[in-house]
């Protein structure tokens, strides 16, 4: 990516989750692109929303998972299959 990246290149990099790993110069060009392109800026915001929502969703550990009776049932079935 030599000059200003195209919208397709920007969107692909964001969807691949590779923005943070990109060289500093590329990240700078992408940020400049955001300043000029509201569509890519919106795409980037949505990628951020998706990432945060997934983190929230996947990290949720309902208290019920820590119920001792679940482990107890598994132990009983392992002992007496």
């Amino acid at each position, binding site marked *: 990516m030599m000059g200003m990246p*195209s*919208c*397709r*290149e920007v*969107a*692909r990099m964001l*969807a*691949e*989750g*590779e923005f943070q790993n990109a060289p500093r110069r590329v990240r700078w060009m992408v940020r400049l692109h955001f300043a000029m*392109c509201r*569509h*890519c800026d*919106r*795409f980037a*915001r*949505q*990628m*951020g*929303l*998706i*990432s*945060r*929502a*997934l*983190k*929230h*969703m*996947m*990290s*949720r*550990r309902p208290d*019920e*998972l*820590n119920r*001792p009776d*679940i*482990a107890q*049932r*598994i*132990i009983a*079935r*392992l002992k007496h*299959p």
Partner: protein
Amino acid sequence: MAPSNTEAEADITALRRREGGAMERLVREHTPALMAAGLAMGFSQADAEELAQETFSAFLEAIDRFESRSRLKTYLFGILYNKALDLRRKRRREESLDAVEGEFEKRFNARGMWASPPKGPEDSALNAEIQTLIEQCAEGLSASQRAAFFLKEAEGESAEAICNVLGVSYTNLRVLMYRARLKLRECLERNWEKRS
């Protein structure tokens, strides 16, 4: 609190010797994380419990092959992931290849500029409504995609560890997550338009 390496090795030795209480400690310590992984992959609580049990069972049967250098939790996730794929196959919920990449390419013109710009939420603040919409969309992800996000987001595993658990190369993992993000964004856009 997670046991230290020395404690973990002592636990494995105790399991290999079939010492009393070792299996119970293993199950009590790892059941919540395995259950969470099963639920994150889209299984019901009952299925997640069955998967956790089968994971322990397979692990205990093959414990002599377990190398103490491996991280026990990651190793258990690997077994659970394969059991989950088996269960899904049994249920005939095979994952079909999606056309999300084709849809993505169609959004751009020959010069790589947006021909069909993204719609949907514009704000970067995550509120309860958007969270719910994305969670509904996540139901459409494949088991591999869900497992990859669970390991990355909830367990904080490295890309290398995730590749080991899923049995894929780094390039494949990148493609898997790329398609998942595109699919979620397309779905979010559709659902956002429907609601307004």
